[in-house]
Each structure stands twice: as C-alpha cells, then as structure tokens.
C-alpha cells in the first residue's frame, strides 16, 4: 500500500512540473529551483509534513522534499541554537544529499564520457 501511495503522490508532483514545462517557457532548471523553494515554503508553514507522512518517498524523493528538509532543519536548528541554528539547521538536514551529489557527481564525471545523441 505504501508503494502505491508513493507512486501516486510522487507521480502527481511530477505532473505539476510537466504541466508547467509544457505551458510556459520555463526550463527544467527553473522547475528545480522553484520546486525546491516551494518545498522550503511549504515546510516552513508545516504543510508538507502530512504529505511526507502519507506518501513517504513519494513526497521526499521529489526535489520539493529536499526543500522541505531544508526548512524543517532550519526550524529545528532555531529551536536548539537560536539564530545560529537558522543558518546551520537547513544544510545540516540536507547534508547527506548535497555531499552525495558532490562526491558521486565528481566521480561519475571522471569515470564516464558523454555520448553523442542520435
């Protein structure tokens, strides 16, 4: 059951992105940036947590979930360390994904060569 929920919610979040792509002049890069920011706002307002509870990876795997993690981390940081926590909390919560992206990105770039399309 939780797989079906993840599939449907994750799929729907992507559909929102597709509708924006097909009806505006925005590029996938715009989508990534605006979705992560939307995730931060939803997370800050506490609106994304219920979606994560319901859909699991369907909510955390889309980049919106990355934004939500940043916001939740910042709030938690504030609770623990006040104003300093606002600065450290977000990145701390998202550190795994960011560090992985840097490391794996670097390694893959060294190992592989881009292939021509046809």
């Amino acid at each position, binding site marked *: 059951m939780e797989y079906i929920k993840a599939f449907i919610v994750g799929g729907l979040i992507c559909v929102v992105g597709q509708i924006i*792509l097909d009806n505006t*002049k925005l*590029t*996938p890069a715009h989508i990534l940036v605006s979705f992560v920011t939307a995730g931060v706002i939803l997370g800050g307002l506490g609106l994304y947590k219920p979606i994560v509870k319901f859909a699991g990876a369907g909510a955390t795997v889309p980049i919106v979930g990355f934004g939500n993690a940043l916001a939740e981390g910042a709030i938690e940081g504030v609770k623990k360390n006040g104003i300093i926590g606002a600065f450290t909390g977000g990145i701390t919560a998202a550190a795994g994904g960011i560090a992985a992206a840097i490391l794996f990105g670097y390694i893959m770039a060294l190992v592989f060569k*881009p*292939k*021509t*399309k*046809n």
Partner: protein
Amino acid sequence: MAIKRIGSQTVKFQNPPSIISTYTIVGPKEGEGPLKDYFDMILEDDMWGQESFEKSEAKIQEEAIKAAISNGKLTNQDMDYLLAGDLLNQIVSSTYSARSLSIPYYGLFGACSTMTESLSLGAMLIDGGFADNLVCATSSHFSSAERQFRFPLEYGNQRKFSAQWTVTGSGATVLSANGNGPYITYATTGKIIDMGVKEADNMGAAMAPAAIDTLLTHFKDTGYSPKDYDLIVSGDLGKVGKAIVLELMKKEGYDLTDIYTDCGVEVFDIQQDTHAGGSGCGCAAVVLNGYIYKEMMKGKFSRVLVMATGALHSPTMNQQGESIPGIAHAITIDVNKD
C-alpha cells in the same frame, strides 16, 4: 561607380566564378538521412579520434577543405583565399582548421548563413580580379553546438517540437575564375531582420522573416521570378520556418509551393526524430555541396537559388532578454554564364 551592382542589395557578376569542386563530410546521423548518397564521406564516429567535440569539428572542416581542393586538381598553394566560418565562439573550428592549411584566411561569422556569405564574398573577390581560385567552407557539430547553445548531452531534458537538430558536418566549395560551371551569377546580401522572436528553440520562426525579405529583394533586384528557378532552397528554417515562408510569400504574390524547400527539412527523415529538422552552418553546406551541386552536374537543375539563413544570437544576449536577429544571403547558381 559600382557597375556590377543592381537594385538595392544585389550584385550581378560580369565574369561569373565557377564552382569547380566540392567536398562534404557528415556525421553518422546525417549519413543515415535521405541525402546519404550525395555525401562524399560519412563518419562512423563523430569524434573522429579527437579528444573533444570542438577538435573533431575542426578536423572535419580541415579534411573537407583539403579534399575539395584536391577534387579540383589543385593544391593549397593555388588557393588565393580561404573564407570559412562556423558557430562556435571566436569561430574556432575554422581557425584551428585553417592553422595547418597555410592559405590566406578570412574568418567569417554569419551563424548558419555562413555558407552563402562565404560564397558571395568569394565570388566578389574573383569577379573583382582579386583572386583566381579560392575555397569557401563552413562546419557545425551537434555536440559542440549543444554544449555552447543548449544543454549537456547527458542532461535529461525534452526538446520542443519546434527545436532543430544541429547537423554534424562540413562542406567546402572551390571557386575559380576558370571553370565550366556551374557559375555563381548573382548574390543578394541580406539585411538583419528581427521580428522579436526570442525562443532559441524556435529559430525557424526567428529567421523566416529575413529569408522572406531577401527573397523579395532578390526578385525585385534581378527581375527573376520563381519560375526562372528550378529550385529555391533556404538554409535551415526547418519545418516551422518553411511553412511560414511558403504562406507569407503567397501573401506577397509568389507561389513557391513546388519549387521551394529547406536544407534542414531535406537533410533528415521524419523517423530520425529531430523534430523540426536540421540546422547549423553545416546544414546548408552539406546540402549545397552534396545534393544540389551533384544534381546540377547531372543536369537535374539548371538554375538554383540558395539562401542560407542565420540566427545571429548568443546565449548571453538571450539571457539578457534580447530577441534573435535573423539574416539570409542568397546566391544564384546557374549552369550557364548568363
């Protein structure tokens, strides 16, 4: 007194220079397209043993120039000028290709219009008495163009249906004061026309007004009408631009339905999934030096108007919100001198 000038934008050559030889090299995808039998060389690997796409493009252009010259039974020393251009920043494909050729070199940038830009200027140099033989060339490479103008190859984006596919390839033409044709008899130099289209994935629509402007001017200046031509061909307007040219030319009173086409539409098949067709400096270059030249030599066409079209924008100007300036240069190629 500019005695060879007629009308507002056209020159009529008094001693029309002759195309004496050509050569074309294309990438694997172009080599599977409908014009594959007209290309002199089809690469199996578009890197051609080079370390980067840019170096590969330079090599493709260099080899095309060398082969065109030797096809004309001439040597590099016989060439008074090399006129070449491409799409990359600082036209590096052309400069690096020219590096080892040791031919006096003028680098040209007219984006995808460079093939007819170089042929117009080359014909003027010869008719003006400044050169006996010279070579004109352009190139483009899908992968080097993608990375300069669009996205990395491995980036998972969806291309719009109006987007075009940069042709990997190069075409070179040797022009001579002495030859048996086909001849370049007229050249109509285009003005920059910008109707405010901003989308780099809709270049056909951005360039079509320039093509229409040059066509109308050419007919007015030369007194030719569409029925004087066996074929009228634009460079890389693709499906979208071609449809616009046909429709708007009809409104201007010229029905081009049966004699007009576009190199970008011809070079790829619908099954090749390029969306609106081919583009790039190499597009007009390989279709002109491959298909059109060879069919003229066989006698299928006796007078052709070739009009390469260029979108003279850059990603920087695009990001600053600017629209795409278009240009189109037309040349008349005729098996007879007049």
